[in-house]
């Protein structure tokens, strides 16, 4: 099959006089999935994206060697990426008063940040205020799916029924059995690589060919197995066998060096929303896409209080437009969707749309990260270098805390992401002491002999963790910005201590010498897994959406992104976001067919 490299053309002049069946705000994992499902049902859909449609292959330059880039991947002078130090010692808005022409969030990867400068937003144009938060936003067709870390995990009833398990928070209004068929659909439609492990806390997917483990990883896997624990190959949202039904995506050719950038794949073996969902949806003839459309309000019918469309500005010309639709679907990302609801005040909805509960913006949660360990596998020192990184990721150690045991210091759990083996750049170079011939030989001999892993832990959803609108600060387009009221608590700090101690123990038990450890928790937001600002629930007094991500207050308004999540779990959210969006949009199409909306 020949890969189609040319995406379908976008409409230059979108017909805004008609009323669409649905208008979707946002083109990432959630918006792309909504577009795919609704167009498959034959509905006429308009998709609004605030950013540009980028020539993404030219941005990513996946196989460019560092030395073929004039700055070895770094951004040009005048551009600046925020560091952990800046996120720590300063307060948002981080770009305020900066001498640089452009300021970006921390995202870059070791090979430099020039590859994401058009994908992630300029903090100067997109300020926010309040507590420290490393908010990474991608405004372009496909959003963050263009650069995501591609770890594709399912949630289990340890997550959906967390309160029943340990008494904290709220259960989701659904269980794993409700979502399982939709996880299967996502697996088969988009492709996922992994190995079945039969774990109750991390259900298996319908996997394509898994990636392999290298020497150090097998050593750790075998050791963990003796203690009843599991190390499994990275479950990657990557098609390793190819997808016969998708002409825009190639299978993975193990070209490697996937760790050098924040993510992204110019042959689209990694899932991204444009090639995985949006272009095929456009091919149905039912989808219209309008980039450069900054939504700022969900419009409401004065008589019925129901949603009637979306008001937006052209991001370039700043002209005002309205898109009319029978149903409005927000998929702008957890924080942007909450912002839109809060911006959409009207006499019927004085606290913001769908916010009679007062929970919009609240119960904000995510994953805590930073703590991790590095070990040295002595028997690999001085061995010839092998091809170890020809794969989309290394390994994953699923959650093991607070399943059957009860930890004294914290509730919920965490998993480790890690890898070992030789990669393009010897990351240990600055930890190798000295200079000269011996230094150079040490760097060479030790390359490939390390194993590293870092944990991602569940941050508890709390009503007190929230965002609201800042009354004084506006973005480049004159739209009020979000203000953060969000900080990690003792549960996360105790969990972080356990991440380091247990990581050390795992390596030492495997006979791997611990040579490094990170105890520091990275700034709130660093995981880019923000969730839960418009949570689902059965009770309209304590939740914003029902189990089909439909607003309790406004039945023809759906919010299908991560804002609907009731708890963060410790598993990466993208696959769940898409499974839930598919389920909700199937339900929506059925409701429309029955005339219930």
């Amino acid at each position: 099959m020949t890969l189609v490299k040319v995406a379908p053309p976008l409409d230059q002049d979108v017909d805004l006089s008609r009323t669409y069946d649905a208008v979707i705000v946002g083109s990432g994992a959630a918006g792309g999935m909504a577009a795919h499902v609704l167009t498959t049902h034959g509905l006429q859909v308009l998709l609004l994206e605030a950013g540009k449609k980028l020539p993404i292959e030219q941005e990513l330059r996946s196989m460019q060697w560092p030395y073929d880039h004039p700055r070895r991947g770094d951004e040009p002078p005048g551009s600046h990426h925020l560091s952990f130090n800046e996120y720590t010692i300063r307060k948002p808005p981080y770009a305020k008063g900066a001498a640089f022409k452009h300021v970006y969030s921390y995202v870059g990867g070791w090979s430099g940040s020039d590859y994401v400068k058009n994908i992630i937003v300029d903090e100067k144009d997109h300020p926010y205020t309040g507590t420290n938060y490393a908010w990474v936003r991608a405004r372009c067709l496909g959003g963050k799916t263009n650069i995501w870390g591609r770890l594709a995990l399912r949630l289990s009833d340890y997550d959906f029924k967390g309160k029943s398990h340990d008494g904290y928070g709220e259960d989701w209004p659904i269980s794993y059995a409700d979502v399982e068929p939709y996880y299967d659909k996502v697996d088969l439609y988009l492709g996922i690589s992994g190995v079945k492990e039969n774990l109750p806390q991390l259900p298996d997917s319908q996997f394509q060919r898994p990636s392999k483990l290298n020497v150090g990883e097998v050593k750790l896997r075998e050791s963990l197995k003796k203690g009843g624990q599991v190390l499994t190959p990275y479950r990657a949202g990557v098609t390793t066998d190819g997808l016969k039904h998708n002409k825009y995506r190639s299978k993975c050719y193990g070209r490697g060096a996937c760790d050098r950038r924040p993510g992204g794949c110019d042959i689209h073996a990694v899932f991204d929303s444009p090639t995985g969902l949006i272009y095929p949806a456009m091919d149905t003839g039912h989808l219209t896409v309008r980039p450069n459309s900054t939504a700022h309000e969900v419009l409401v019918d004065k008589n019925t209080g129901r949603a009637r469309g979306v008001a937006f500005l052209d991001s370039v010309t700043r002209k005002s437009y309205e898109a009319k639709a029978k149903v409005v679907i927000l998929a702008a990302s957890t924080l942007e969707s909450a912002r839109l609801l809060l911006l959409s005040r009207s006499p019927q909805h004085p606290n913001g749309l769908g916010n009679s509960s007062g929970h919009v913006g609240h119960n904000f949660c995510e994953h805590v990260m930073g703590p991790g360990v590095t070990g040295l596998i002595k028997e690999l020192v001085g061995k010839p270098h092998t091809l170890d990184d020809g794969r989309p990721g290394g390994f994953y150690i699923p959650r093991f805390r607070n399943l059957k045991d009860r930890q004294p210091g914290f509730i919920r759990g965490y998993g480790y992401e890690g890898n070992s083996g030789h990669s393009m750049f010897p990351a240990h170079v600055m930890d190798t002491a000295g200079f000269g011939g011996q230094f150079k030989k040490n760097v060479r001999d030790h390359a490939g002999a390390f194993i590293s892993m870092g944990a991602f832990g569940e941050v508890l959803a709390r009503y007190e963790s929230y965002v609201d609108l800042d009354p004084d600060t506006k973005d480049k387009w004159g739209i009020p910005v979000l203000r953060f009221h969000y900080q990690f608590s003792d549960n996360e700090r105790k969990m972080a201590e356990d991440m380091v101690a247990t990581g050390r123990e795992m390596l030492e038990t495997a006979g791997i010498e611990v040579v490094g450890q990170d105890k520091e928790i990275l700034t709130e937001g660093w995981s880019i897994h923000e969730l839960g600002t418009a949570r689902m629930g059965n009770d309209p007094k304590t939740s914003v959406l029902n189990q089909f991500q439909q607003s309790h207050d406004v039945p023809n308004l759906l919010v299908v992104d991560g804002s609907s999540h009731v708890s963060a779990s410790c598993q990466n959210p993208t696959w769940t976001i898409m499974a839930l969006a598919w389920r909700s949009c199937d339900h929506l199409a059925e409701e429309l067919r029955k005339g219930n909306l």
Partner: protein
Amino acid sequence: MTDAPNHLESLSRREMIAATAAALVTPLLPGGAAAPPAVGVPGKFLTAAEYALLDELTELIIPADDHSPGARAAGVAGYIDGRLAESLEPDWQARWRSGLQAVEALSHELNGKPFLEATAEQRVAVLTRMAAGEQDPKTAPERFFRELKGQTAHAYYTSKIGIHLDQEYKGNVYQRGEFAGYDAT
């Protein structure tokens, strides 16, 4: 410019061979011609004297050896100088200028002569003193050492020589079954 000939004379025979060898080897690598060795090239931001000093320092940090050419052949000083020249951060530029001055000052203190006029052993002594506080730098030369080593290592290990000849990196190619791993199933 006047310092460039001195700098060339200061090259050891081994270094000259290594630089030449690199020039011979690199065109065989994928992706076309190699970056030319930076030997004797006058600086863009740095003065010729500063440039010659930097070039020697980078080669002392990552020297040519039996396995692979070093920082000089990989054009490390030229790359650093190019980044300094286009930088819009005067503080960073000033740190490099004062850092190189601190090296000269230390050379005078330890050896009583400019760095490039000192013997090979004397140069190593200067760098050894600079590297002494690597984990917890306190003096100006110690602080500069971390910056110098970091930039040298980054430029070298992202160069054609660093990636292909020194590290013998095997990836970033369409894989044909030679992945060195194990099935977990």
